[in-house]
């Protein structure tokens, strides 16, 4: 077993060893029970009569079988209980890690990995702990017990059976030998099937509007044919060997071999017909498990890979927290937020921000502008400590964000993001996240101020409607919910990522009025996508490919040659093509 499996299973190690031991005993008992009948049959042939003492064998068989079953039941119960405890523990650890990991990790990684870990990998772990280990034990112990029982009357036949099992196993191994290289091809073929399926479903409009069925089969059909051809080719190489191995491990072959070898041994006077009987009965137990060992090992390997993936989540790098946190000085005099020589990149060799410095004075409105990809949203995420700068520092009230207790930090800074992630909760709870313990009246007040109250009252259960089930908010609505939440939080500093495209004109107007209320009497940083709306900002920061290239008020910046003036004139062109109200009135 590999290291990560060992570590992950450590908390339930004792229980697992116990379960495996019980399963081994149970399997041995069950085979021994059946063996009693085989030995009884041999005895009857040898003596050619029935003695009363022979009933002892039948009773022994019964007792061993029942006891074996009870112990096996115990083993299964213990392994399932251990599994339930382990999975709870693993899920807790994953949740704990996820709540402390750099948030940048979520932007640079697909949540697919988390999804796989919490769904598929935990299921594979369940299979490993609760089933696979016990199954493997049975597959190994049953042949062993059977060989020993056969050997007690005829060791040569025991050896022959063992040899048959080994030959069948080696043949299976040979059939599987090339599969490592082929697995990659298999993965690619399945990947193309998947991609083609997603395209057929998500791109249904495009496919229906444009794809010409008369000239070319669909991508899914081509992928299916390619997969089929590949697979036939693959099994074509191995299916004969696999089929032969399968036949060798089957009970008929075992019985045939035991009859033939037995006759030879009898002919050579090495044993009596009675000695062959246990081998006839128990022989198939030695070779038959070979047929299932492949799938058992496969599920064991899946479990191990799953353990590794889960451990990967449990070991994600977390944002360090300070042991001796300091309190930021928000006295209304010094700068509220300050960036000092901040550089940052998601990948070490691809810096997104270079040496950015600026200060936000109390009660001012600062706008960050720049073309898309200039690093505006990344800058906002550093202010929220979703990530830490690679070089330089962000300070709140004169204290490095890294030295502030997260609770204090988030009580001081409120956020309205571009992507509004709404958790599956009632609308009331979603807004209440802004301030735990806020009364319903406060929640409603915030919703009114954010212009979303009326919409909420139209929902089937009003504030108790569940987001995602009772209602899917449009972009503009979700944004107003987020504003309500930020209003309730009432933090002195607001970081605002203005959305690019509003869902519809009516909503746009309401979002704007809600935003105006939110920024009143606070220190605000706005990531601006429309220059016109931030013309009155106290300070405009112009980002260009990660560098702070200009800084000043609108009037100062338009007076100078530079990126801001270019951005401004572009936005003016669109304003001109847009007929102004005066033109038509």
């Amino acid at each position: 077993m590999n290291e990560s499996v060992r570590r992950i299973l450590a908390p339930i190690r004792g229980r697992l060893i116990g379960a495996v031991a019980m399963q081994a005993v149970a399997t041995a008992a069950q085979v021994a029970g059946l063996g009693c009948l085989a030995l009884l049959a041999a005895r009857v042939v040898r003596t050619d009569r029935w003695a009363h003492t022979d009933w002892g064998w039948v009773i022994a068989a019964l007792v061993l079988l029942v006891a074996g079953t009870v112990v096996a039941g115990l083993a299964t119960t213990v392994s399932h209980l251990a599994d339930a405890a382990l999975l709870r523990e693993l899920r807790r650890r994953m949740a704990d890690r996820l709540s402390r990991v750099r948030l940048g990790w979520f932007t640079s990684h697909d949540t697919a990995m988390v999804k796989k870990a919490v769904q598929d990998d935990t299921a594979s772990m369940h299979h490993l702990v609760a089933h696979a280990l016990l199954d493997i034990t049975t597959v190994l112990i049953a042949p062993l017990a059977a060989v020993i029982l056969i050997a007690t009357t005829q060791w040569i036949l025991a050896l022959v059976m063992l040899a048959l099992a080994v030959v069948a196993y080696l043949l299976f191994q040979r059939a599987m030998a090339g599969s490592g290289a082929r697995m990659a091809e298999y993965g690619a073929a399945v990947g193309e099937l998947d991609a083609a399926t997603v395209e057929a479903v998500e791109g249904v409009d495009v496919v229906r509007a444009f794809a010409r069925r008369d000239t070319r089969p669909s991508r899914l059909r081509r992928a299916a044919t390619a997969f089929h051809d590949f697979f036939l080719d693959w099994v074509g190489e191995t299916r004969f060997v696999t089929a032969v191995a399968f036949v060798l491990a089957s009970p008929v072959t075992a019985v045939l071999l035991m009859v033939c070898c037995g006759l030879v041994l009898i002919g050579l006077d090495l044993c009596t017909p009675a000695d062959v009987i246990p081998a006839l009965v128990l022989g198939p137990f030695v070779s038959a498990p070979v047929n299932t060992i492949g799938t058992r090992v496969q599920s064991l390997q899946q479990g191990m890979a799953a353990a590794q993936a889960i451990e990967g989540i449990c070991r994600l790098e977390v944002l360090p927290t300070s042991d001796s946190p300091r309190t930021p000085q928000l006295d209304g005099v010094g700068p509220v937020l300050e960036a000092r020589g901040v550089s940052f990149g998601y990948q070490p060799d691809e810096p997104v921000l270079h040496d950015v410095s600026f200060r936000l004075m109390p009660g001012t409105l600062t706008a960050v502008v720049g073309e898309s990809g200039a690093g505006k949203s990344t800058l906002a995420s550093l202010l929220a400590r979703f990530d830490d700068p690679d070089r330089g520092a962000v300070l709140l009230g004169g204290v490095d964000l890294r030295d502030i207790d997260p609770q204090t930090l988030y009580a001081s800074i409120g956020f309205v993001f571009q992507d509004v992630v709404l958790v599956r909760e009632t609308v009331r709870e979603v807004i209440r996240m802004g301030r735990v313990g806020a009364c319903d009246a406060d929640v409603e007040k915030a919703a009114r101020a954010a212009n979303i109250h009326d919409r909420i009252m139209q929902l089937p259960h009003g504030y108790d409607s569940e987001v995602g089930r009772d209602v899917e908010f449009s972009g503009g609505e979700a944004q107003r919910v987020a504003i309500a939440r930020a209003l309730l939080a009432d933090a002195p500093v607001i970081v605002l990522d203005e959305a690019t495209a509003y869902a519809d004109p009516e909503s746009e107007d309401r979002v704007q009025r809600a935003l105006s209320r939110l920024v009143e009497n606070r220190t605000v940083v706005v990531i601006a996508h429309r220059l016109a709306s931030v013309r009155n900002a106290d300070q405009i920061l112009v980002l260009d490919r990660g560098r702070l290239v200009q800084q000043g008020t609108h009037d100062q910046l338009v007076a100078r040659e530079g990126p801001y003036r270019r951005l401004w004139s572009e936005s003016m062109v669109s304003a001109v093509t847009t007929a102004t109200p005066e033109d038509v009135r």
Partner: protein
Amino acid sequence: MIKELLTALGRRGARPVKVLTAWLAVSAALQAATFLALIPLLQDMAGGRSIVASLVLFVALAVAWLVCTVAVQMRGFTVGADLALVLHERIDHALERLPRAWFRRGRAGEVSQLVGGTALSAMNIPAHLLRPLVNAVVTPVLLVIGPLVLDPWVGLAMLVASPLLALVVWTTDRSVNRADADRRRTMTQTAERLLEFARAQPVLRAFGHADQSATRLGAVLSQQEKAERRLIAGTVPGVLSYDVVSRLLYVIGVAVAAVQLSQGHLDAPEFVAVVVIGMRIAEAVSTAAGLAAGMRMNRRDLAGLNELLAVEPQQWPDQPAVPAGNAVSLCGVGYSYDGDHQVLDGIDLDLPERGLTALVGPSGAGKSTLAHLLPRFLDPTSGTVGIGGVDVRRIGRDDLAGRVAVVPQQVYLTGGTLRDNITLGRPGASDEEIGRACGLARITDLVDGLEEGLDTPVGTRGDRFSGGEKQRIALARALITGAPIVVLDEVTSSLDAGNDRAVTETLQALARESSVLVIAHRLADVVRADQIVVLAGGRIVQRGRHEDLIGADGVYRDMWRAQTSSSGWQLRSAGASA
């Protein structure tokens, strides 16, 4: 499981599986015959007779079984592969005909699971599941003849047992099924909670509740553990009882044989035969128990596949009519997703063969639904949509696709290169044609800026292009087809100022030779449209040119005012407002 599989495969696809099953039955019968042939062999040996005849019979049967089984096993693999192909083709066939309304969010995941999960697992059925299953039925039934012939009492003891066994199978299967479904459900719920917790991290942390919610999550996790503990009680007896019952029956059979032996009704070799053959019966039955889990899984998955295949497809005409011209006319068109709420109601609208028609209105007014009627993404629930005087439902599928080009709101780029994407509706278009379409859609600079130009792979879901770039690529894709009717849904929503203006000009030029229908939310983009149609609540409330509409009271003027006032809106600092 078998029933579900055969349904999923359809009549033609099911044939090879049925043939294979028959051969598996032959193999199982040969196996039973081989074991039964042990009886004369044992009797001849005990009686001191010549064993040649009985040995030859036994070996001949064993060899016949061997040859037959190798052949059937090999066939199982190819049948499995063919079966997956049939399932894939049937899914593809269904996807091409499913009503557009079926394609909700989350469907991609569901279908991926069917193609990559269900259909591939089903490949294992012929090779690995069908054989033990057939064995478990055929072998015991034939083998029990042995004990019956040797001594009716022993045979009957084993036969009487079978109803009992069936009862056990039935009850445990039910309880295990239920427990299994419960476990899957709670596991999925827990996984969803955990995933939601991960996805919501930015919000949770920004409001300082990462831990708070972790405890709420903690409650869910504890519940899950409790549920699992409850389930164990339901699962464990089921897993074990099948195994133990089949073996106990064997012991009982042997015990009855022992009684008969002790009373002289059975001789020693016959007793041995009962022991050997009885064991084979018990084992054949108990291996089947190990298949239950796999069969349950396949049954459930295949049932899901059959649901997809059973969805009523969209109908296309066998003998299509050819429209005269391309004027579009909607007569009394209504549409409802649920038969209750009318998304569109009593729409009468004509689009001339040339000209720009703009569809505007508040969100939820039914604009996209209306646009989806032209290419038959949807069919109206009342009224008719006609092109060139022919109901679109009577036009051939490829003919209609050639007449109506669509630029959807959510642009989707298919796999392959930029060229593949642009020429999707016109395979083999020349570089000149592509260049002209690119110019009109304002992507010439974009293409020239790429190292591999038109041969640049677009990547999964076109991630390497921005929203505005994707919209223009989709526009080029529509323009190159030269379709006489072009439908554009919010094509300028992600464009920056310069491209917005250029694309608007392109559309105006296009409208001089084709019928263009645009859905717009920026009214400024459509002030020069030949006809503006205002939708609200699924009805046409106003129509006319901009100059007419702006002068009249109504939805249009309200929207215009809201938009012009919001474009002048400004954020003001605390200092300025104080």
